[in-house]
C-alpha cells in the first residue's frame, strides 16, 4: 500500500514537472479542446464530414508525437446539418459548458458566418476550411477567424483564366440560386471579362435540384462555348452527367467552378475527363502529400479532399501557435498564427493575413482520361501552380475593416 502511494506521488511529480518548467504553457482549464463542427451526414459529408474529424484527430496525434506539448488536447465533434441556427447554438454550448477553444471545419458559408461571430464574442478561434464564400475574410471578417483551404475568389482565377486562354471565350452560367452560387458566378464573370472573354447569360436553378436538362437546354441554346457550373456537390454531379446525355459535351465544354476530388470519384473519369478545376490540394502532387494522404486513406478508405487536408493543416498550425505563444488565449494565438509561416504538406510558405485569409498556392488541375489513370484515385494532371498572391483577393481590394489602408 505504502509503495503504491509513493509510486503515485512520484508519478504525480513527474507529470507536474513540465508545468513547473519556465516555458510552461498556461492553458485555460488545463486542456485545449477542439470542436469539429461540420455536416456529418448531408450533402457535404463526403467532402468534409467524418473525414474532417479524422484529419483533425490526425493533426492532434502528430502534434503530440512530434512537438511533445505540455498541455492536453481533446477533439470533440457535432453534426451542424448545414443549418446556421444549429451551428450557432452548438458553438455557444461548446464555449459555455464544454470549454472548447477552437472550432474546426465549418462547411457551408451560412454556418461559418454564424459560428465565427459567436466565437469572436467569446474570444475563441474559428478555423474555417469547409466554407468557401469570400465574406468570411471580407465584409464579415474578424480577428479570431482563419480561412484556410480555398474561397470563391480563388477558384475561378485558375479555372476561368485557363479556359479563356484555351479559346473558351463565350460563357454561360448554370447557377445554384443561393448566396454561394451568386457569389461564385459574379467572381467568375469578373475573371472571364478581365481575361478577354464574354458572358452571354445565366440561368438560376433551385437548390438543391436533380434534373438539370431544362437549364442545360437553355445553356445549349445560348451558343456559348463554355458552360460554367456555379454550383456544388450533387448539383454539379448531375449537371455534368446530364450534359453528356444531351450531347452538350463535348460540343460545348463544361467548367466546374467548385469541384472536389470526391465529386470526380463518384462521377467517374468517363464523364469528367478533360475538365479543368482549381483546387487547394491534390493528394498525388509530391512525396509529402502522398505520404500524408496514404495515412489518411488507411483510416477513411478514400483520398482526402482539400477541405479535409486543410483541416489537418489548420489544426496543426493552431496548436503550434499555442505552444509558441505559451497560452491558448485567442488573440495571442492569432498573433502567433499570423507571425509563423505555414510549412507542411498542404502549404509551402503559407501566411495568415490580417483579414484571416491563409494565403497559399492553388493548383489548376485537368481531369485525366480513363486511359491515363494508372491506379485508384489517379485523377488529375496538375497543369499550373497559381501563386497564392495571385489566387486570393489582394489586401488592397479587401473590404475587411481590419485591413488598414
Amino acid at each position: 500500500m505504502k509503495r503504491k502511494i509513493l509510486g503515485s506521488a512520484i508519478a504525480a511529480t513527474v507529470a507536474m514537472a513540465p508545468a513547473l518548467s519556465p516555458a510552461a504553457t498556461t492553458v485555460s482549464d488545463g486542456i485545449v479542446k477542439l470542436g469539429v463542427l461540420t455536416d456529418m451526414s448531408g450533402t457535404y459529408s463526403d467532402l468534409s464530414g467524418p473525414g474532417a474529424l479524422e484529419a483533425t484527430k490526425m493533426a492532434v496525434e502528430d502534434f503530440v508525437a512530434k512537438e511533445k506539448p505540455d498541455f492536453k488536447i481533446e477533439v470533440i465533434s457535432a453534426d451542424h446539418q448545414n443549418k446556421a441556427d444549429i451551428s450557432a447554438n452548438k458553438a455557444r454550448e461548446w464555449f459555455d459548458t464544454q470549454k472548447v477553444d477552437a472550432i474546426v471545419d465549418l462547411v457551408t458559408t451560412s454556418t461559418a458566418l454564424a459560428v465565427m461571430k459567436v466565437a469572436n464574442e467569446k474570444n475563441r478561434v474559428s478555423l474555417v476550411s469547409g466554407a468557401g464564400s469570400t465574406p468570411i475574410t471580407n465584409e464579415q471578417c474578424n480577428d479570431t477567424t482563419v480561412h484556410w483551404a480555398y474561397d470563391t475568389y480563388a477558384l475561378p482565377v485558375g479555372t476561368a483564366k485557363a479556359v479563356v486562354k484555351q479559346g473558351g471565350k463565350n460563357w454561360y452560367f448554370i447557377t445554384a440560386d443561393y448566396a454561394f452560387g451568386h457569389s461564385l458566378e459574379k467572381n467568375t464573370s469578373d475573371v472571364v471579362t478581365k481575361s478577354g472573354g464574354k458572358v452571354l447569360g445565366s440561368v438560376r436553378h433551385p437548390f438543391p435540384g436533380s434534373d438539370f436538362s431544362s437549364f442545360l437546354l437553355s445553356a445549349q441554346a445560348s451558343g456559348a462555348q463554355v458552360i460554367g457550373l456555379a454550383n456544388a456537390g450533387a448539383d454539379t454531379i448531375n449537371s455534368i452527367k446530364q450534359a453528356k446525355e444531351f450531347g452538350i459535351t463535348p460540343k460545348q465544354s463544361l467548367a466546374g467552378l467548385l469541384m472536389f476530388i470526391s465529386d470526380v470519384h463518384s462521377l467517374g473519369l468517363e464523364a469528367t475527363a478533360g475538365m479543368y478545376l482549381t483546387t487547394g490540394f491534390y493528394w498525388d502532387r509530391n512525396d509529402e502529400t502522398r505520404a500524408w494522404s496514404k495515412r489518411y486513406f488507411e483510416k477513411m478508405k478514400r483520398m482526402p479532399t482539400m477541405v479535409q487536408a486543410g483541416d489537418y493543416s489548420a489544426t496543426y498550425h493552431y496548436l503550434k501557435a499555442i505552444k509558441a505563444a505559451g497560452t491558448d488565449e485567442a488573440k495571442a494565438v492569432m498573433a502567433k498564427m499570423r507571425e509563423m509561416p505555414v510549412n507542411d504538406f498542404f502549404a509551402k510558405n503559407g501566411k495568415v493575413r490580417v483579414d484571416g485569409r491563409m494565403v497559399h498556392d492553388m493548383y489548376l488541375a485537368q481531369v485525366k482520361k480513363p486511359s491515363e489513370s494508372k491506379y485508384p484515385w489517379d485523377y488529375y494532371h496538375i497543369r499550373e501552380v497559381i501563386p497564392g498572391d495571385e489566387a486570393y483577393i489582394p489586401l488592397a481590394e479587401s473590404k475587411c475593416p481590419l485591413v488598414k489602408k
Partner: protein
Amino acid sequence: MDIFGIPIQALMGQLLIGLINGSFYAILSLGLAIIFGLLNIINFAHGALYMTGAFCAWIGLTWLGLNYWVALIAVPVVVGALGMLIERTMLKHLYQLDHLYGLLLTFGLALIIEGLFRYRFGISGESYPVPELLSGGFNLGFMFLPKYRAWVVAVSLVVCFGSWFIIERTKLGSYLRAGTENPQLLQAFGINVPLMITLTYGFGVALAALAGVLAAPVFQVNPVMGSNLIIVVFAVVVIGGMGSIMGSIVTGLGLGLIEGLTRVFYPEASAVVIFVIMGIVLLLRPAGLFGRER
C-alpha cells in the same frame, strides 16, 4: 416564331423535358395512389424504395455483373418482395388505426433505409452508365433527344396505362376495388383479402423500384435521390386526388409539363410552382382534381 419572347423551338424542347420528368412523377405517384387506395397507408417510404431500386440496379451491375435489362425485371421483383415483407411484418398491424400511424411508420422506415445506404455508400453516390443500346439520341431539329429519355417516357406510359387498365377494367381489378370498399364482404365471397393486400403493396413498391431503375442512368444514384423527389410526388397525388389511379397518372404528366414551362419563363420558381398549384387545388377542390368526396 416567338411566344412571349421565347423561340418556339426552345419551348418545344422544354415541354418535351417536362414530359420526361412528368413520366417519373406519374409512375411514382401511381404507386402511391394504388397503395393509398387499397391499404389506406400513406407510404412515406416510397422515395426510399425508389432509391433502393436505383441502388439495387447499380449493385447488380457493379458487384454481380447483371446488365440493365436484367435489372429492369429483377430489381422490381426483389424490392417488391422486400415491400411485401414490410407489409407482412409491420404495416398489417396498423390497418385498424389512424392514417397517421402508417405515415409515421413508413417515414421512420424511409429514414432508416436512407441512413443505411448513406452509411455504406456516402452522400455523393455512384454513377450508372446508360445502357449501350439506348445511348446516343435523335436530332429532332429543335432539340437533341437522348434515346434513353424517349425510352423512359415509353416505358412509363405503358406501365401507367397498363396498371390503370388492370385495376379499372379487369376482374382482378374489380376484386381490388371491392377490397377497398368492403373487405369483409369480399372475404365472404372466398377471396383471400390479406394476401391481395400484401400483393398490392408489393406491386406499388415494385413500381417505385422500377422508377428507380429507370432513373439510375439519368440521375446520380445517391441515398437522398428519393427524398428530393418524394415531396413533389406527394403534391402530385394530392392534386390528382388521393387514391385516384387515373388522377395520379394525368396529374403527374401534366405537372411535369407545367414545371417545364416554368423553367423557361421563371426558372427560380420551378421548385415551388407545383406547391402553388397544390394550394390552389386544395382551396377549390379539397378532394383533388380527380378525387371523389367521401
